[in-house]
């Protein structure tokens, strides 16, 4: 989309609907976000004004439980000036040329949509005001609006939006960027606790999710792939399986060697999922996994230990004079930390429905990243992107797993072999655990130099992760802008990268969910050596309020906002009074900055017989000037906190023998349960900054806060996850 195209295109179109309503199509120019690197583009929202003065607003983003299907229409409805109970939200299909970005990732939706969604609503409202002014022959700045009505205070006249449809449809639309938006003090929807738009349907058990997609003549598919990810198909007893009850097709799928696209497999299509999966028990496949069989958890650990004992392969960042600073240090603190691979375990297993007919594909997908899927399907199957329609279903948990679209390519590849027949591919739980894109494991050897006053003068991290050459795997990067590397004058970050056959991916707060743990737990050790507590050490490191440049596309880091949440949580959690806790009980602190959000958290634990009990958590966050939906915001923080505690305490780790992942269900890769849920106190520090997202930034700090609390309670340092005090 070029600037010239932007200026030529109408910003708002209004047209009459059959039956007397009005359809607004609102195209709002979005300035290229510097961090996006994308060209300016149009965002199209829609509002349908229906007889009875009711309004249908399009919800354009994939809904994974993060609340965007409710929060984005709230922004439109606020400026359109209607009541929320007049609004119905309708999920759009995937089309970025119409709707702009529709992905659910990186906690970016709120920041990206905050302005254009409100402008869209304001532009539609303005057209109705103009229509009323003409009808009443009054100046356009005269009429006001409320609850879907235009009013003229002087004459006392009022008219419903729907009754202005004929006039509004004739008008030339206003430029949304020239419209004055509401003063937040006037908000009647934004900032109010509004339940999710799908909650009534969820409670009633209505079909909403990808797994619930129904189509006439649908066949159910299961897909067998090599247990060691990446192995190639050699042969199978296909005819035996074809003869089993209910089985309609048994197909070999030839992959392209890319896990994020399509790997070799055997698909069984049957009249029911159960029949397909039962037939699978009789399937015998010979795989060539000679290139994968050498990878194991044990060998990664041995290679990491060797690497950490030697000079690193490459430097990621050298800032100031770290060697000189360490040589001059009054004291050096060193410690090694590590964490395992993790799976996502979305409760709705990966699935996708596809129909290939007349050279075109229709897809029903629970995907966080639909346009990425369209591109992958087009490339893998040689189908033009415009011949692929993607319908967005509600998503039974994302956490980053569904930013990948392997299941979409697989379903499309299977459907392409049975033209005219819709196919629903569903993973079993074992498939889901063994075909994940895992949070990568990592090892860190840290060192910090302290001067005579206990000030940190240098910071070093020798990181061992995974990658090829000097290119780390997805979600396995060591960012130079991470806290505290961005706060210390002399820094050396270096790395060694190991090979793996496991595909890796983004897990809620990717990078930060691991780096927050290791860096803040290590800094707690540094603080102890310096004779301080961690909040004090952090405030020393942060110094005066100022903005520090982010790395690459990353956001700037404002030290003042970090101070604000640290000071807030210290007060909330009675941090200074922690010395009064009984023996065996302790409080720990953690801070992290991720996804543009600032969170500081305190965890209180007791430890008895090696068992950790979390009693209470305090979280203070700064995500800008406005909490869009406080009901959901609280939910996101509570969920992040419990998920983070689970990563440390529930026993989660993905391990591998001979290239194969060992975990296959929730018993061996457990997630947190209700009986381990503590009291969680949440407060937001409101600052004069544009609102940003809440899906992720509350997660990273809770893990170091937890292990630092275990240290406070027991004197033991936890330097490896999951926590094992035995």
């Amino acid at each position, binding site marked *: 989309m070029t600037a010239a195209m932007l200026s030529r295109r109408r910003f708002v179109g209004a047209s009459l609907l059959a039956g007397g309503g009005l359809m607004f199509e609102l195209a709002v120019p979005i300035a290229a976000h510097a961090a996006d690197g994308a060209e300016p583009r149009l965002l199209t929202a829609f509002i349908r004004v229906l007889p009875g003065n009711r309004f249908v607003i399009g919800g354009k983003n994939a809904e994974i439980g993060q609340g965007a299907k409710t929060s984005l229409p709230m922004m439109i409805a606020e400026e359109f000036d209607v009541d929320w109970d007049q609004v119905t939200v309708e999920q759009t299909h995937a089309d970025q040329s119409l709707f702009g970005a529709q992905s659910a990732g990186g906690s970016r939706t709120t920041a990206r949509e905050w302005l254009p969604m409100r402008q869209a609503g304001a532009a539609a409202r303005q057209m109705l005001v103009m229509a009323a002014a003409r009808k009443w022959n009054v100046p356009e700045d005269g009429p006001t609006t409320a609850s879907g009505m235009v009013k003229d205070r002087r004459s006392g006249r009022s008219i419903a939006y729907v009754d202005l449809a004929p006039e509004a449809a004739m008008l030339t639309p206003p430029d949304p960027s020239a419209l004055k938006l509401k003063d937040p003090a006037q908000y009647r929807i934004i900032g109010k606790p509004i339940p*999710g738009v799908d909650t*009534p349907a969820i409670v*009633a*058990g209505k079909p909403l*999710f990808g797994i619930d997609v129904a189509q006439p003549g649908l066949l159910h598919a299961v897909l067998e792939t090599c247990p060691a990810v990446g192995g190639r198909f050699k042969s199978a007893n296909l005819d035996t399986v074809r003869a089993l009850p209910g089985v309609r097709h048994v197909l070999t799928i030839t992959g392209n060697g890319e896990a994020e696209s399509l790997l070799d497999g055997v698909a069984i299509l049957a009249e029911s999922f159960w029949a397909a999966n039962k037939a699978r028990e009789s399937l015998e496949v010979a795989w060539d996994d000679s290139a994968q069989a050498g990878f194991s958890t044990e060998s990664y650990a041995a290679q990491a230990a060797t690497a950490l004992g030697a000079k690193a392969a490459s430097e990621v960042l050298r800032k100031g004079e770290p060697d000189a600073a360490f040589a001059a240090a009054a004291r050096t603190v060193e410690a090694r930390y590590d964490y395992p691979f993790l799976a996502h375990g979305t*409760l709705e297993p990966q699935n996708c429905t596809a129909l290939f007919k007349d050279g075109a594909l229709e897809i029903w997908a629970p995907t966080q990243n639909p346009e990425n899927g369209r591109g992958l399907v087009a490339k893998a199957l040689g189908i033009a992107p415009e011949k692929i329609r993607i319908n967005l279903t509600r998503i039974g*948990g994302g956490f980053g797993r569904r930013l990948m679209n392997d299941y979409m390519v697989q379903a499309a590849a299977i459907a392409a072999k049975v033209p005219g027949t819709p196919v629903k591919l569903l993973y079993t*739980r074992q498939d889901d655990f063994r075909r994940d894109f895992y949070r990568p494991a990592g090892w860190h050897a840290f060192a910090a130099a302290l001067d005579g006053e206990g000030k940190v003068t240098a910071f070093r991290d020798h990181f061992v992760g995974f990658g090829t050459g000097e290119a780390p795997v997805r979600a396995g990067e060591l960012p130079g802008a991470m806290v505290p590397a961005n706060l210390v004058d002399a820094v050396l970050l270096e790395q060694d990268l190991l090979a793996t056959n496991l595909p890796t991916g983004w897990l809620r707060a990717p990078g930060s969910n691991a780096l927050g743990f290791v860096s803040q737990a290590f800094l707690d050790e540094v603080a102890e050596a310096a004779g301080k507590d961690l909040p004090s050490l952090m405030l020393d490191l942060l110094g005066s309020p100022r903005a520090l440049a982010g790395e690459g596309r990353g956001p700037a880091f404002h030290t003042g906002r970090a101070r604000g949440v640290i000071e807030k949580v210290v007060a909330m959690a009675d941090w200074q009074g922690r010395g009064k806790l009984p023996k065996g009980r302790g409080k720990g602190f953690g801070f992290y900055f991720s996804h543009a959000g600032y969170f500081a958290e305190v965890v209180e634990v007791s430890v008895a017989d090696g068992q950790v009990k979390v009693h209470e958590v305090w979280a203070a966050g700064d995500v800008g000037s406005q909490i869009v939906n406080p009901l959901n915001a609280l939910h996101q923080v509570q969920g992040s906190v419990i998920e983070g505690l*689970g990563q440390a305490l529930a026993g989660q780790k993905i391990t591998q023998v001979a290239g194969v992942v060992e975990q296959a269900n929730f018993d061996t890769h457990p997630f947190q349960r209700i009986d381990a849920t503590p009291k*969680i106190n949440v407060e937001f520090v409101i600052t004069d900054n544009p609102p940003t997202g809440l899906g992720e930034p509350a997660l990273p700090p809770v893990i170091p806060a937890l292990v630092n609390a275990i240290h406070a309670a027991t004197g033991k340092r936890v330097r490896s996850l999951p926590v094992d005090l035995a």
Partner: protein
Amino acid sequence: MAIRFTVNGAAREIDVDPEKPLLWALREDLGLPGTKFGCGAGLCGACTVHLDGAAIRACLTPVGSVEGQSITTIEGVAALDAGRRVGEAWHTLDVPQCGYCQAGQIMSAVALLTEVPDPDDAAIDAAMAGNLCRCSTYVRIRAGIKAAAKSRGAAA
């Protein structure tokens, strides 16, 4: 083989392999997709339904074993007084995030409230620990059960 049982108060008859799990019979043969598949091994509780009022895991229950018995699913639970109260509390407090586990959570919560009208935290945790919520909506599940307990006796 024809299998007859009652689902949400209505007599149903299906002709399927009696070994087929009740979960898939509900979803595929009876047009009731509200009951969810999560693990297939009785570990997550997403498939929880009631068998003669008690919470069971439909993914481990062969449909042949419920012959002649009465099943209640999420689609029909609002007909029970406790089901109605739990549904209202779930909506008012906005318990779901992604929502995928909530059918199972609600079925377990209704079974609990039917047996223990006014459960404390310990009773809630004991009854609900078999239901995994990957979004961790546990704070609100506890609050929802307490709100539903409190509204006992209130008019529909």
